[in-house]
């Protein structure tokens, strides 16, 4: 039974790796920079899942701690990148000033087109 669980986990990890490899295609070809951000974010989620499965495979708990860290870092990195493109600076605090009505849009300083290649 242990052996069967082992192979089950390895299979799941394999499919997660295939999913990551497919996402790499979107990351490389993504026409707009937002496609790339989306691909990296999704890639991060898959890495978290992969780390969880993998640490069960090798029977060590420490991998799950790293998965927790990544689940948090992935979120923070995504927000940081978006903030960078919205304000073209990182030291802008995200407070309520960036929230507006649908009619009066608050447009950031850095407005750039979606195309990046």
């Amino acid at each position, binding site marked *: 039974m242990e052996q069967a669980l082992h192979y089950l986990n390895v299979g799941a990890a394999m499919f997660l*790796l295939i999913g990551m*490899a497919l996402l790499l295609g979107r990351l490389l070809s993504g026409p707009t*920079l937002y496609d790339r951000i989306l691909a990296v974010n999704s*890639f991060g989620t898959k890495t978290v899942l992969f780390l969880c499965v993998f640490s069960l495979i*090798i029977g060590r708990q420490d991998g799950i*701690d*790293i998965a927790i860290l990544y689940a948090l*870092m992935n979120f*923070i990195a995504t927000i940081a990148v978006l903030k960078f493109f919205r304000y073209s600076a*990182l030291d802008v605090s995200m407070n309520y000033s960036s929230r507006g009505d649908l009619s009066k849009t608050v447009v950031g300083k850095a407005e750039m087109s979606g195309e990046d290649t």
Partner: protein
Amino acid sequence: MMEGFTPILLLDMGLLAMLVVVAFAVVRLRSLFAIVMLQGVYSLLSAAWFVSLDAVDVAFTEAAVGAGISTVLMLGAMLLTEREAKPVPFQKQLGPLFIVTIVALAMFYAVGDMPAFGDALSPANSYVGADYIAATKNDIILPNVVTAVLASYRSFDTFGEVVVVYMAGLGILLLLGLNGNAGKWRAKPNGQNITGRKNAAEQREDKP
């Protein structure tokens, strides 16, 4: 089953293959933003690979530094330069290629002198390492030997490493934008009164 071939090896090979693909893409792409994103992916993949090599502490640092602070540093650098890399003429590529080849050969040569993976008689496993493992349980009660060695036994020569972790924490604070914002958090979105919060906010204002 083949001798020495485990399913985990297959996973390792998959991870390493993707690392190679990402590395080639980083070299070949011109869009600097895509390269920054790819470097984030490279760090994710290499941390997963470090876990597979049982180097969990390295993976932890890689997660904090590689995915967090280095992406931000790269973005900050992009702010100062252009968004696209100019192609480098072939003549200028020869020098770096030569250096890289020499270094790679030297590293391959050095691999021959490395102890085998998991060798019980290797220097790392036989002299001080064994002492540390034996003494940690009584000296420092923390269960993690690596933490004990890094932060206590060798705290002076690993000072740089501690600073790196500290910088990663500072980077997160920078991202969250806590600078100059302390004490100013007030829920008054566009003057809208949000249940009971306004009273508290006004009270705060009353205090000088």
